[in-house]
């Protein structure tokens, strides 16, 4: 394998389908020149906007006409998409184009008035954001089944069949326009359908027709440039952490300075207000410190309390150390796991989206040396105190 890889170098450079062009170079130089000439100019944005808009329309003209040709090609071949010879149709793309004459059958919303809480079929609006440049982003959540064709367009795209098209919320302004429907976690979708997307092999998988998908979330985005919809579908085993907002900490796990002082104070008083301004990663470190010194009282104190979290009351917890996992053996294991953590120097604190219970949750993600895959340690914000705490079974 080593030799094969060494022989591959030349092929690799030739195969990556991109190169640094004169235009790239000019873009860099222009950006720098602009930064230098107008460090904080109030005129520059306007000038740039004008130039950009002009360029956009200039290129847009070619692109739109190009795209129209492309769509014609796509339409011509749509009755028999497998017969394409050169992959051209698949590269062009597939869209969903709502028919104006059937306007009364679609789940139409008014882009100017749609708001959180509105319902469309089985989906409810959970977020609406409008930006200055008149773009609109809406999140719909719920559960709806759609049937349609999944195309390999370099990434998977979905075109609903006639019936399912009526179950996707669209704006009144979208009629007769091309809407591209894509997937969240598109790499996973591609994997599921055996598509070679994003790879250097330009094979295109034949369309998967009459495919039924269960959609849990629809992210709608429109602006003057077009409308896009991303579908989040159920039953997809994804490493969803990859895509959530996160912060990376490059540090040792051992406590020092202020955090150690907080630990000592908290261990002595169990005063929750000491934890008030701490981040999930700080709580993770406090908890690991408790494990490292076998401080079972503070370990318990750091657990999030309440029936819904499965944490027993203090008396129950301490009456049965074996059952609740703080006997001698468990304490030794805790110390051993801390020793392993000492070799980790980078942790990611990932903010998870609020779940149906309304709880704020975070995950501390890290990789132990010589271990395949990541570990995730969950931290939950106590809804009553606003303090981040540790659930009884934090490791995921």
């Amino acid at each position, binding site marked *: *394998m*080593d030799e094969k*890889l*060494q022989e*591959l*170098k030349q*092929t*690799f*450079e030739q*195969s*990556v*389908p*991109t*190169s*640094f062009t004169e235009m*790239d*170079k000019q*873009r*860099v*130089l222009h*950006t*720098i020149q602009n*930064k230098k000439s107008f460090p904080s100019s109030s005129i520059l944005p306007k000038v740039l906007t004008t130039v950009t808009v002009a360029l956009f329309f200039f*290129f*847009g003209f070619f*692109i739109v006409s*190009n*795209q129209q040709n*492309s769509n014609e090609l796509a339409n011509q071949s749509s009755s028999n998409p497998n017969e394409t010879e*050169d*992959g*051209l149709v698949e*590269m*062009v*793309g597939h869209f969903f184009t709502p028919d104006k004459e059937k306007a009364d059958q679609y789940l139409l919303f008014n882009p100017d008035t749609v708001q959180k809480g509105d319902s469309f079929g089985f989906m409810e609006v959970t977020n609406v954001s409008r930006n200055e440049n008149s773009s609109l982003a809406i999140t719909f959540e719920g559960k709806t089944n759609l049937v349609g064709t999944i195309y390999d*367009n*370099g990434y998977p795209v979905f075109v609903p069949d006639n019936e399912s098209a009526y179950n996707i919320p669209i704006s009144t302004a979208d009629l007769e326009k091309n809407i*591209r429907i*894509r997937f*969240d976690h598109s790499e996973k979708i591609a994997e599921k359908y055996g598509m070679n997307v*994003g*790879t*250097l*092999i*330009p094979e295109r998988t034949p369309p998967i027709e009459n495919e039924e998908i269960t959609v849990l979330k629809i*992210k709608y*985005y429109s*602006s003057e*440039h*077009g409308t*896009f*919809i*991303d579908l989040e579908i159920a039953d997809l085993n994804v490493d969803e952490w*990859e*895509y959530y907002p*996160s912060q990376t900490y*490059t540090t040792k796990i051992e406590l020092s300075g202020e955090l150690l002082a907080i630990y000592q104070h908290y261990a002595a008083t169990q005063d929750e207000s000491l934890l008030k301004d701490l981040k999930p990663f700080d709580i993770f470190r406090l908890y690991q410190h408790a494990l490292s010194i076998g401080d079972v009282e503070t370990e318990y104190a750091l657990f999030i309390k309440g029936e819904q979290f499965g944490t027993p009351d203090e008396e129950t917890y301490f009456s049965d150390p074996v059952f609740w996992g703080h006997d001698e053996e468990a304490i030794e294991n805790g110390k051993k796991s801390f020793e392993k953590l000492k070799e980790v120097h*980078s942790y990611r604190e990932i903010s998870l989206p609020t779940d149906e219970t309304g709880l704020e949750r975070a995950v501390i993600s890290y990789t132990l*040396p010589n271990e*395949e895959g990541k570990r995730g340690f969950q931290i939950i914000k106590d809804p009553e105190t606003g303090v981040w705490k540790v659930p009884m079974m934090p490791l995921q």
Partner: protein
Amino acid sequence: MVRHTIEQKGGNHMEHTEKLRLVHEENILQLETMEALEVLMDTYGDEIKRLIYTYVKNDADTDDITQEVFVTIYEKLHTFQGKSTLRSWMYSIAINKSKDYLRSWNKRNQRIKEKLTLSAKNNNHVEFLEDRLIEQDEKQQLLANIMDLPLKYREVLILFYFKDFSTVEISSIIGVTEAAIRTRLKRGRDKLKQKLMERGEQHG
């Protein structure tokens, strides 16, 4: 000559090339910043842009990140202290920017420009398709498998085998211990081997 470990690289040709590169880099650093940037873009533009593509796997974002990387290089060049080679310093900027993009929340948002770029670049891609379809051999398959690997293996294999960095250099570029780099190289190769075997079974 027996190689003690496969992670060691040698060879007079490579050493010679490396020396030339270092001399070249020293010369670049003597230049005025804008001139230096132009030379850097001419010398390393292609390889940096291709590297970025292997992370983000789409043209539109590759264009944007490449631009951002070279603007950053221009802005930070005066802070370069020569602790690593200029090339590996630029690689670490490109890799960090690419990873920032992959991590960013925005990545999950719909990207208008993708639609534009797909159409605009259609012709190039068709040429690429034709070339590649003619010689879709084992090498291409292996490359495709590399591109399919999880990022942590993919990046290490690419940097080591295709970009000629040593494990020590990779360690400093991506901020992971050298031992972990070696482990990833080994696991990456194992995963590739496994994929090729699976494919062989399917086709054989």
